[in-house]
């Protein structure tokens, strides 16, 4: 992978795996049966929907493939994945629809 050496990649894999295990083990293993405060649970509940959209926004709005300008295939494919996923509540269907939209539009436009 461009810009990353083998040891660097393995460092990320192992560090991410270890940190993820610590998170998963936290209450089960070390902290015991104590309840988490409600305000903390309330914030943790939103981590995926808070972080993932921020992560994809630049890739959707300013894709590298077009040199950072708005692109119809990227925008419409993203809208399709989001729309189908919200409507059908089905991630696999959403990913299939989004990918198909992207590949078709890119071939046509």
């Amino acid at each position, binding site marked *: 992978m461009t810009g990353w050496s083998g040891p660097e990649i393995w460092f990320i894999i192992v560090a991410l795996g270890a940190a993820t295990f610590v998170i998963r*083990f936290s209450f089960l293993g070390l902290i015991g049966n104590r309840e988490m405060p409600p305000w903390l649970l309330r914030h943790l509940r939103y981590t995926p929907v808070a972080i993932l959209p*921020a992560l994809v926004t630049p890739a959707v709005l300013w894709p590298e493939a077009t040199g950072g300008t708005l692109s119809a295939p990227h925008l419409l494919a993203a809208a399709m994945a989001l729309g189908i996923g919200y409507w059908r509540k089905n991630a696999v269907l959403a990913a299939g629809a989004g990918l198909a939209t992207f590949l078709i539009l890119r071939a046509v436009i």
Partner: protein
Amino acid sequence: MATQTTTTGAFWRGARDCGPFLLVAGPFGALFGVVGTEAGLNIAEVMGFSIVVIAGASQFAALSLMLDQAPTVIVLLSAIAVNLRMAMYSASLAAHLGPARLWQRALVAYMNVDQTYAVSVLEYDAKPAMTLPEKLAYFFGTCLPIVPTWCVATYVGALVGEAVPASWGLDFAVPIAFLSMVAPALRTMAHVAAAAASILLAIAFAGLPYNLGLMPAGIGAMIVGAEVERRMGHAFPPPGARP
């Protein structure tokens, strides 16, 4: 032996109840394998992610930031942040499995993913009379359709990825995968508000180098989601959502 029979029964019940999620773990595991090898990871590295980390969204997050040449610390912090919700899973499982032995709890923790957690906790809540061995057996049953599938599907995807030319433009599969995971999770007004805040804050912070805007955007959006939930009550559905 009666207890033996009930734990075996609980194991297979867990496997059956979690069975439909095969249709999630399979395609997304394969997708990670494909885009991972397309991005230039070798098969061992792709498998390393799926076996050591087993957390789809954070694997895709790490991959996407590595492709952006973000600094290692940003790659790790962002991918770890995506998994913070699992502390909540851990706390909720601890209420049921806390008295189990340490190695059993460690094994539960390793396989504590969205689907195994959700299916198990629903069962524990529905059947308060379950014994600890039954609860453990049920949890390990839910892992059967998910964990091996995730790893095998990643491997198959990696083989496919090595055969697919990079010019197909499958790199956009990563953002698509994220949006597909997020959209069905927009169950309440609070989730919708958090996602909208996340997009707006990402645009506001887009000028910062090295994806440094991701953390403040994520934290800000988390606060927005929690605050909306606090004001509206947890179960408030967004307009048009099915019950």
